[in-house]
């Protein structure tokens, strides 16, 4: 009797439990409902600040697609997000919580920039190939370090990868003010712009990063679904002990996968510096590494879904930017609106995976 009372006392009022898998159509329905609610909630916010929600939403959608330039702009936003999300997916498949995409993008950018700045006399194709590989190595090393420490000393990868982001960011700051400082900039801290030889070529008006991204969607999809490596990743992700029991070298798999995860993020860094910025600056990753976590998670780590979600995210960002100047709204306003929409979608995502259980009342 007293035993069961204790039990009731110890049980929290609200408890979170995993739901049984629900069907695809139900998930889709819930997501659409979430979007609808998000739009209503965002609309109320817009009404409160004295805007016409229909006009604002119209501008957001129209702004992302209204002209060739606008579409190109949306695609440019999508490229690094797509590539970084694919990179993160590899690590997340393995339940290795790589929060360090931001740093891996930056490192990829730094490594690629080294060749762009100091070897720009090389033939164009060779130079860009080297930059591509350098970007992969840079990002890959930045992913390998936390994996090594995790397998060797059991360090927490979430904290470790997060901290590495700041080291990477401050490395750019150091390079900007120190060894790579542009001597012609008369005292302003900046790195010189790349010569045209070190710039990524454009295909249909947008730098070739979009093609690299699309190819990577295919490559990552095949890698996860149809290769031995991909199978190993998912086994390690399900249970390290099972993997060990099956005779897999868990340490090797972990380090290899994190290198690849970082390397793909590094490619995002390379395409940003050589295709979009034409220089290396502190804004090279610009938070993409964190947004990519949301994208990968919302897409349930499916590369094809990632492509779709990335396009939607980029539309929202591009459209909000157009909305800002069209209605004279501050950046904070569009930040709040994006936040509301994301909040609803993520909350619903939570409810499709988990449910709450209320503590049952005491029975006499």
């Amino acid at each position: 009797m007293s035993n069961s009372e204790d039990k009731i006392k110890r049980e929290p009022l609200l408890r979170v439990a995993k739901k049984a898998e629900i069907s695809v159509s139900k998930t889709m329905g819930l997501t659409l409902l979430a979007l609808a609610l998000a739009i209503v909630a965002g609309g109320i916010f817009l009404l409160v600040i004295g805007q016409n929600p229909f006009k604002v939403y119209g501008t957001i959608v129209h702004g992302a697609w209204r002209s060739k330039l606008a579409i190109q702009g949306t695609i440019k936003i999508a490229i690094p997000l797509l590539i970084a999300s694919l990179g993160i997916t590899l690590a997340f498949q393995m339940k290795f919580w790589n929060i360090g995409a931001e740093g891996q993008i930056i490192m990829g950018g730094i490594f690629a920039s080294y060749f762009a700045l100091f070897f720009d006399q090389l033939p164009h194709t060779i130079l860009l190939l080297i930059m591509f590989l350098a970007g992969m190595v840079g990002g890959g090393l930045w992913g390998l370090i936390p994996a090594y420490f995790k397998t060797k000393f059991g360090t927490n990868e979430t904290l470790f990868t997060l901290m590495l982001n700041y080291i990477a960011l401050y490395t750019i700051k150091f390079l900007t003010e120190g060894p790579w400082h542009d001597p012609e900039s008369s005292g302003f801290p900046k790195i010189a712009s790349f010569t045209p030889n070190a710039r990524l070529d454009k295909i249909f008006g947008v730098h070739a990063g979009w093609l690299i991204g699309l190819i990577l969607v295919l490559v990552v999809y095949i890698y996860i679904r149809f290769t031995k490596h991909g199978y190993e990743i998912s086994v390690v992700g399900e249970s390290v002990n099972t993997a060990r029991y099956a005779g897999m070298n868990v340490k090797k798999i972990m380090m290899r996968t994190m290198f690849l995860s970082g390397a793909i993020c590094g490619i995002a860094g390379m395409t940003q510096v050589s295709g979009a910025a034409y220089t290396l600056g502190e804004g090279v990753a610009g938070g993409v590494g964190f947004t990519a976590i949301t994208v990968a998670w919302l897409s349930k780590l499916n590369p094809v879904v990632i492509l779709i979600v990335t396009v939607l995210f980029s539309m929202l960002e591009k459209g909000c930017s157009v909305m800002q100047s069209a209605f004279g709204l501050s950046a904070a306003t569009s930040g709040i609106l994006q936040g509301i929409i994301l909040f609803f979608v993520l909350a619903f995502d939570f409810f499709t995976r988990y449910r709450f259980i209320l503590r049952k009342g005491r029975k006499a």
Partner: protein
Amino acid sequence: MFKKLLSMIVVATMVLSLAACGTKKEATTETTATETTATDAVATEAPAAEQTTKGIPMEDFKVGVIHIGDPADGAGYTFAHDQGIVAMQAALGLSDDQVIRKNNVNDTDAVAIRTAIEECIEEGADIIFGTSWGYMDTMEQLAAEYPDVVFSHASGYKSNGTNFNNYFGRIYQARYLAGIAAGMKTQSDMIGFVAAMGIDNSEVTGGINAFAMGVESVNPDAKVYVKVTNTWFDPTLEGQAAEALLDLGCDVIAQHADTTAPQMAAQNRGVWGCGYNSDMTKDAPSAHLTAPIWNWGVYYTMAAKAVLEGTWTGENYYGGMAEGLVDISPLSANCAEGTQEAIDAAKQKIIGGFKIFEGDLYDNQGNQVCKAGEFISDADITGAMNWYYKTVEVK
């Protein structure tokens, strides 16, 4: 099953409608593109001079502005520039949707800069003003990519002679006047100066020198102590730099920094200061003396009008007090007696041709930087003023 089919159809129609929308837009932009190439071909056959005089119909004219901060700040650099845009809009009679503002564009993020400028082009901007130094390289690249759009960049040193120029002004003239107000007010003969950038930066260093010369002209005993923040916009760092100077014993705080933080710090200590960019008397009413200010509207109106009327030449612009581009804000009641008279006299001298950087001048290392009867060239003022005046000391 039926439900699944239905949702798939809905998705498919959505995708299709988007695609249709996209292709339609693309088709129309393509036709306009061929049209412009056709007119371009005609234009290249005609003499080059005719090309620059074609002008733009008033209702199609649009102006883009890239701001590093937000005009809503109500004071400081971005606010001052935006007041100039507002003045230009009023002078030319443009409607609100003919002015495209992109605010809070980080000037160390080349991708963000490019995105912001391309969005202005997308909206049909004919001239785009970039107000921060860091926009320079991206504007240079875009000027080559979009020869039909005029790019005008503040405070840089690059230009291409056609659709990419730079504009700036002789703000050092106004700093000289602010120096007079500071020199007459100080009691400790120690004046602090919060500087955004170090000695390598000609714009900041020249401003400090002119300020120190203004101080010296009325108070030969006073010294100017400089603290560098290495950032154009950082309220915390700027406030801390001012605190450090106040701790030294400075009783007037001048600044080449974007925010009101140094003036607030001076006010908290019950001493005085000279702001920058806009009249900061309203922000620190019991401390502020006067601030060197910009009337950017003078340039923005002139440049936008030139593009509108087709008289744009692509020349660089370097205006001063005589043109009305720079001035100081009205003196506050905090100023010492006789300040107005001293400043009015100096102002007349400057408008009358006094160059400030002229005559027998020495830096703080004891080197002669200008000989008697000579003056320092504009090129050196904008690009090579890498020495501090003899009464300046860096802390």
